[in-house]
């Protein structure tokens, strides 16, 4: 089976990263499907926690926002945001968070605030929401983004959510937070971060993509792993679960 979309590849790659993960902060869209796929494959004990205050959701339909009422009915618990942010997230109970961004730099710092000058913005973006605290406090963070030069930039216009800051030990100096970005999952490949410099490198190419085609979409000279992998394509079972169980209407896998 070689018919699958770039989104399906991203969902499958993200799900596989969750092997043995226990508690994950879920966003809507691809991360949500990736987590649901992981529950059915590599992480049967995965607990999904939504910033809106829900955990143990059993949604009867594909949720359209993290505040969707279908997440509440039949959930294990619902708590005020004050509890969720303090007793779950800040307490360090969450293993994994997913984030997207309008701009990403080589150290996994994220901008979702503004393009251009903060006070005279070219484009005013949504801002942090919970992204800054997720970036700091989840043990590991996965970034999901489609690869292109507007997104993967040399320098952010604004650091909304810290990754490894200026690299090296810069993040450690912030204090006792989560480990930071573990991987960037894109439609062309998977990036990880070097152990000491914490600079992003291309770790795995999705089938059909080349280092050159990836480099074209990245705004800095990209490092590439010596043992560059090729991502295993989605299995039939993975695709079946996505297409038949998680997104039968095809809203997200297109």
């Amino acid at each position, binding site marked *: 089976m070689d018919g699958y979309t770039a989104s399906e590849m991203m969902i499958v790659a993200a799900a596989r990263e969750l092997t043995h993960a226990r508690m994950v902060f879920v966003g*809507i869209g691809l991360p949500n499907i990736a987590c649901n796929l992981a529950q059915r494959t590599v992480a049967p004990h995965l607990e999904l926690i939504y910033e*809106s205050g829900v955990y143990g959701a059993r949604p009867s339909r594909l949720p359209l926002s993290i505040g969707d009422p279908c997440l509440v009915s*039949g959930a294990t618990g*619902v708590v005020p945001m*004050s509890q969720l942010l303090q007793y779950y997230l800040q307490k360090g109970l969450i293993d994994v968070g997913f984030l997207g961004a309008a701009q990403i730099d080589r150290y996994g710092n994220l901008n979702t605030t503004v393009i251009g000058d903060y006070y005279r913005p070219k484009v005013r973006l949504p801002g942090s*929401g919970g992204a*800054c605290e997720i970036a*700091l406090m989840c043990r590991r963070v996965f970034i999901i983004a489609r690869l292109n030069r507007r997104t993967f930039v040399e320098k952010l216009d604004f650091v*909304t959510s810290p990754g490894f800051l200026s690299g090296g030990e810069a993040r450690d100096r912030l204090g006792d937070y989560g480990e930071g970005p573990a991987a960037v999952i894109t439609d062309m490949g998977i990036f990880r971060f070097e152990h000491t410099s914490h600079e992003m490198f291309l770790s795995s190419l999705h089938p059909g993509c080349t280092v050159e085609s990836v480099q074209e979409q990245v705004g800095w000279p990209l490092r590439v792993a010596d043992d560059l992998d090729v991502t295993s394509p989605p299995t039939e079972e993975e695709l079946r679960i996505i297409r038949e169980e998680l997104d039968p209407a095809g809203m997200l896998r297109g």
Partner: protein
Amino acid sequence: MSKLTSMREAIAELVRDGDSVAIEGFTHLICFAAGHEIIRQRKRNLTLCRLTPDLIYDQMVAAGCARKLVFSYLGNPGVGSLHAVRRAVEKGIPAPLELEEYTHFGMVARYIAGAANLPFYPVRTFAGSDLLRVNPLIRQVENPYGSGMVFVVPPLNPDVAIIHVQRADVEGNAHIWGLVGVQVEAAFAAKRVIVVAEEIVDEAIIRSDPNRTVIPGLIVNAVVHEPFGAHPSYAQGYYDRDTEAYIAWDTISREHQTLQQWLDEWVYGLSGRAEYVDKLGSQVWQRLKPDDAWSGQVNYGRYC
């Protein structure tokens, strides 16, 4: 002592030009009916506080009610931008808009400090973010039990909080279920509180399940009965979020002109929420109506 009044009177009496106003609710129970009445009464120079300004503040900004937003996420959830807010920020249309910006946790912490009468609230977020550079109200205190500093935010005490709930008695004692967001903290932080309820119930209903009472009447100034008052947001168990309306807003709001036409038709042109409900039509409410899913009961016991 009944505090039951109309939305028109509640807004006229309790929301004043120049006030800071919090219409809270995280996705759930966002009181659009109150926002529309504020637009109709042409309130001006408001500081609008909310984690997620959502469509309601986009509409209030477009209508010229606001001079400032205090917020953490400026978006049409699941759809895209808030175009009216962006026009105000990027182009000053219809008027410039001041932004005071936090993260979700920062906003929640500001409400907690406000509700608890604390001069500041400590949080471990913000580290490494440029928010520190653009918001001088985020500060630090020293940890007296070890080395290092801790970020703090100041209290947020809105002049008015408007809290939509599923049911309340006439004194404002209110039950909420489903997402509670920061409704409780916003209500306790505010100087004046308007409770807007899908249903007004006898106090015996409230008293049958006191653990479900999240807003006490003793902090409530006015109670308004406004069924469907949260549309296109939702009320758990009563009606669904109207995703189509959220998507449609993206088109309506792209131009200042079409947005104003929408306000004429759906806000200025209507006397209040009852007309809005009629105009929307029964087929919309049929589409949004969920099936039943009852909670089951618990036994509190009668002790004699």
